[in-house]
């Protein structure tokens, strides 16, 4: 093994440089940072002059694993990318494979996918703001928002049978339809979410301490954000109105009336405001989708894509063969490559899939939204106080699962 690599890293310990600056190690496991990431800071007094962000503590080889299993077997793995908004990952992956195959799911499935994606966006933002407030000392807000998230988790649990790892979509459809009383349950959950959100809004938005910790910290300009490939709330906080749902609508997003909130300063406070407003917009979308929800099947009719119903499998030979082929070989998209982007909680979540015509993907690439954001962290914390790293890092909402896959 290379001798050079065996040495203790030079800056592992607290060390004072010749010009009076100090090298400080933050993380990998830091009590005020959710997620495992190591930030190597060079500080001058309280100010950060340089930093190096080190990631990779949660790498599990998602892409390598996916190359060795069938398409539908990838779905549970996608849950574990961003585990606070699993449905968006499910939907993104399913859409990418469907695009590759050139098929479209029935209207009802598309509406349900939109509903579940928006519920996931809500849980994502609730966790982000709740954890951010907690790290800055607003512990009560955390419980308020996690209570709201819990109501939504119960709702998604009733639909998909899982709170955090639902594995809800299949190529060409869904595992199950919505429960009959879903509309009523959703209204009930939204009542809780709205109450908790308005309480949190009262406690945070005009809170002197919270405001001072977020305003003008972690600022980034529009040009820098674009150059760093930022997407999602972090990009929109700088004033760029880019949202995949509006720019290149997928599913049935073009049938709903909703707004894309944008900020103007590109600081943490704007990111917070953008997220708060996005949650209200998400509830708006879900309510419209529930009102428009059409009847009909949720699965693609072709048995080369989706498993036939059990009665068919036990009743006739064609369905039995289709069941066998699908279980053992999986769906077989034609040779080709596609890139499908969906709007995740943190920004553009893209799936780039290459098929060689067999039942297993040749290459699955995930474009994780917080990869670029974490890549820009050094830029955002430069010149600020050490304490501001907490609020900036919280608003980046780094999710280890999708960052490192």
């Amino acid at each position, binding site marked *: *093994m*290379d001798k050079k*690599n*065996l040495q*203790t890293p030079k800056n*592992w310990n607290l060390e004072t440089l010749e010009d009076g600056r100090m090298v400080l190690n933050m993380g990998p496991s830091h009590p005020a940072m959710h997620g495992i990431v190591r930030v190597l800071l060079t500080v001058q007094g309280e100010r950060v002059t340089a930093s190096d962000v080190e*990631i*990779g503590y949660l*790498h599990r*080889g998602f*892409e*390598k*694993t996916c190359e*060795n299993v069938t398409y539908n077997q990838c779905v549970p793995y996608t849950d574990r990318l961003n585990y606070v908004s699993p449905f968006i990952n499910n939907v993104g992956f399913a859409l990418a494979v469907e*695009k*590759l195959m*050139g098929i479209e799911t029935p209207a009802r499935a598309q509406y349900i996918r939109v509903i579940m994606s928006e519920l996931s966006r809500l849980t994502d933002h609730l966790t982000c703001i709740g954890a951010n407030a907690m790290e800055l000392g607003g512990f009560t807000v955390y419980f308020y928002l996690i209570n709201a998230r819990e109501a939504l988790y119960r709702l998604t649990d009733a639909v998909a049978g899982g709170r955090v790892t639902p594995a809800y979509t299949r190529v060409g459809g869904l595992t199950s339809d919505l429960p009959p009383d879903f509309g009523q349950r959703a209204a009930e959950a939204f009542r809780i979410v709205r109450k908790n959100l308005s309480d949190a809004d009262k406690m945070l938005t005009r809170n002197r301490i919270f405001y001072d910790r977020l305003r003008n910290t972690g600022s980034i300009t529009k040009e*820098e954000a*674009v*150059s*760093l*490939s*930022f*997407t999602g709330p972090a990009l929109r906080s700088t004033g*760029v109105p*880019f949202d995949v749902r509006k*720019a*290149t609508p997928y599913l049935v997003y073009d049938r709903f009336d909703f707004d894309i909130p944008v900020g103007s300063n590109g600081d943490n406070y704007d990111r917070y405001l953008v997220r708060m407003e996005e949650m209200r917009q998400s509830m708006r979308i879900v309510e419209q989708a529930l009102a428009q929800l059409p009847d009909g099947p949720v699965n693609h009719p072709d048995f080369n894509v989706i498993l036939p119903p059990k009665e068919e499998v036990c009743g006739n030979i064609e369905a039995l063969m289709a069941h066998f082929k699908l279980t053992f070989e999986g769906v077989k998209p034609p040779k*080709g*490559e*596609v*890139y499908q*982007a969906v709007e995740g909680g943190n920004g*553009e979540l*893209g799936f*780039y899939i*290459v098929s060689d015509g067999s039942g297993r993907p*040749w*290459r699955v*690439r995930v*474009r994780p939204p917080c*990869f*670029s954001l*974490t*890549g*820009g962290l050094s*830029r955002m914390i430069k010149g600020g106080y050490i304490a501001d790293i907490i609020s900036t890092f919280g608003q980046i909402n780094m999710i280890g699962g999708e960052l*490192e*896959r």
Partner: protein
Amino acid sequence: MTSYLLETFKAKFPDDVLETHSFRGDDTVLLKKEALLKAASYLKDELGFDFLMDLTAADYLPREPRFELVCHFYSSKHNYRLRLKCPVPEAGASVSSLTALWDGANWFEREAYDMYGIKFEGHPDLRRILMYESFEGHPLRKDYPLKKRQPRIPHRD
């Protein structure tokens, strides 16, 4: 059917474009790797592709050239996407870095280097990003076995 963008691109770089296609509506250009930087700056400055959405690679093992660099661009001005691919041969796999044009390329290229061992010329800080420094091999290469074990690294005091 070929799109206006692909035609423009072909007319601009007639000697460098190897192939274009629009499979499932994704406009794709296959380009010689020597022309990558030139083409990327043309995309950014002239055609308004301001976002480098994604940069990755793929391994097509028995085939030669073995690797392919895959970039996804997005233009917020025209609301349009384009995929640019460059074949990269295995021997001394290297390609020019896009960090001069997009800061976001920095980490994407580090990941491509980490996973495939493709070197990016002109990258300011090409290190492994997801794996540790003494990791042997490049895990997303097709000849890296799925369950390969790594040698133990000694404990650090």
